[in-house]
């Protein structure tokens, strides 16, 4: 009877990949049948001659060793049915070593499952920790970054951005924006930044702040603002993104996630690409909802301290949210909700009455210099 081989036999004169053989378990021992060149060769091994252990990459082979006339022989069994039969027929003298082998295999499997579970658990804790504790970590990391670094980072992105834009160098609009900025910055008690504000010719109703104190205001924003206080409101908001180092927080957060991801996925190129992306990333940096609220409230305070009418800020927000939302970029990056405006109103109500100090320029003239059609205030 010729059956398919069910085990591999290793030995001095046998091939290194093992000689396939047919193992049958009998009452007194094993019968190992080798088929080579169509010739059958049979070997009988009594149970008493066998040494039992576990082997293979996954400890899933039963390894039987004995010394035959040809020298040391090693048999690797994997077939589960065969191993069960062996266990059934094996004499009590082999039970101890069989159990030891089985325990060894089980503990190896447990170790493996344990290692994976541990790794999975660690990952889970890491993710949870990042999720819940990231704000604290980010704040700690951001605190340690010197302002000079922040400025270098922001300046690079700022120059890169301006290189492709039409910049207004002088004129009433530039003078007005500079005056607003100075008014806002003057009351700040602790300000490590030298703010640089540039007016860029574009219809986009937008303004943005880069880390380090670089602020860009688009003429579109100025054209659609009916008073200087409205622009001051937006600038107050943007200045606070810088002062609260929101940009850095986002970068550190994103960096942290990507570093963690690249460690998990093992992508070394990720980091290099990330560094290169920074210039672009800074431009598309979106702040979180909490950061927006923080900038709103702090912006309102800033306006108040600078004695600029804060209701201009609220009015501008409201007015823009009522307009065609799809076209207003400032709003699309700053999700406007009723609650946000309401919150600002409540904040304002809580503050003592303010006597605003007017600006030295005439807003209508500024808008006219930009070619904006005259719009009466609603």
């Amino acid at each position, binding site marked *: 009877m010729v059956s*398919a*081989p*069910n*085990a*591999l036999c*290793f030995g*001095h004169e046998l*091939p*290194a*990949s*093992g000689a*396939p053989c047919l193992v049958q378990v009998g009452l007194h021992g094993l019968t190992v049948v080798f088929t080579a060149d169509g010739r059958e060769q049979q070997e009988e091994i009594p149970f008493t001659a066998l040494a039992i252990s576990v*082997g*293979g*990459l*996954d*400890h899933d*082979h039963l390894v039987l*060793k004995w010394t035959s006339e040809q020298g*040391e022989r*090693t048999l*690797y069994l*994997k077939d589960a049915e065969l191993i069960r039969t062996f266990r059934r027929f094996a004499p009590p003298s082999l039970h101890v070593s069989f159990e030891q082998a089985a325990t060894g295999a089980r503990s190896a499997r447990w*170790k*493996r499952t344990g*290692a*994976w579970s*541990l*790794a999975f658990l660690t990952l889970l804790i890491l993710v949870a920790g990042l999720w819940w504790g990231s704000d604290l970590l980010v704040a700690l990391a951001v605190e340690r970054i010197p302002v000079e670094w922040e400025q270098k980072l922001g300046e690079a992105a700022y120059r890169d951005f301006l290189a492709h834009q039409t910049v207004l160098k002088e004129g009433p609009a530039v003078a007005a924006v500079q005056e607003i900025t100075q008014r806002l910055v003057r009351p700040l008690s602790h300000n490590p930044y030298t703010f640089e504000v540039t007016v860029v010719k574009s219809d986009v109703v937008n303004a943005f702040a880069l880390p380090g104190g670089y602020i860009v205001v688009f003429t579109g924003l100025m054209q659609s603002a009916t008073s200087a206080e409205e622009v001051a409101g937006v600038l107050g908001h943007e200045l606070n993104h810088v002062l609260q180092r929101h940009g850095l927080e986002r970068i550190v957060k994103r960096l942290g996630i990507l570093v963690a991801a690249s460690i998990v996925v*093992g992508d070394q190129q990720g980091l290099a690409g990330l560094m*290169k992306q920074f210039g672009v990333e800074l431009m598309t940096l979106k702040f979180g909802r909490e950061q927006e609220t923080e900038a709103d409230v702090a912006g309102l305070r800033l306006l108040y301290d600078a004695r600029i009418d804060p209701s201009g800020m609220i009015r501008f927000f409201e007015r823009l949210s009522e307009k065609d939302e799809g076209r207003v970029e400032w709003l699309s990056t700053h999700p406007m909700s009723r609650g946000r405006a309401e919150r600002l109103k409540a904040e304002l109500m809580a503050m003592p009455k303010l006597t605003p100090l007017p600006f030295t320029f005439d807003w209508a003239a500024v808008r006219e210099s930009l070619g904006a059609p005259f719009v009466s205030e609603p």
Partner: protein
Amino acid sequence: MRSEILYPGAFPMVRIELSAGEQIKAESGAMVGASPTVDVESKMEGGFFGALSRKLLTGEKFFFQTLRASRGPGEVLLAPTVPGEIVILELDGVNEYLVQKDGFLAGADTVSIESKMQSFARGLMGGEGFFILKIGGKGTLIINSFGAIHRIDLKPDQEYIVDNSHMVAWSATTSYTIERASSGWVASFTSGEGFVCRFRGPGVVYIQSRNPSGFGAWIRQFIPISE
């Protein structure tokens, strides 16, 4: 099926003769040419989820292609993506091989392929990822390497040390442990070896004479950074 390696060396190709109705599976994209009697089908080995898990986990191609000599006998030509040797193994139904994810080129239809999760330490430091292919069954298996393939025969309990990124395939009867190349952490990395695999016989280990990630790192310095 009968297979034959053409142009042995760095840029080999394998010719497989199929009798009518016979089919083989091959890495997708491996086919260079075929007789008009041969149909190419893509097949998801192990079903959709098996294929998906293989794709996501081992980075292996989602589909293997099946080449079937449906309209009479024919031949197919197969070649791997990277320059390197091809080795033809005959599986006897008992021997199983573990193959790193880029090592599989083609196999007889009777050869079974499954993705297998490695132990955590091996996956992390072994250099071939957390998932490898376990190939068994009976029939021809064709594997390829980056560089030349070198075969190491291990007798029972014989040990051999292989750099982790040079492994191609090894018998399931071998076992290996990951260890540092030198006794100190610093020396392990400064020696350029990092981690090595200590294989223990019996069985066969196929290694490749070039290290793909090392080659990648080397070639990266010549790639201009595009804006």
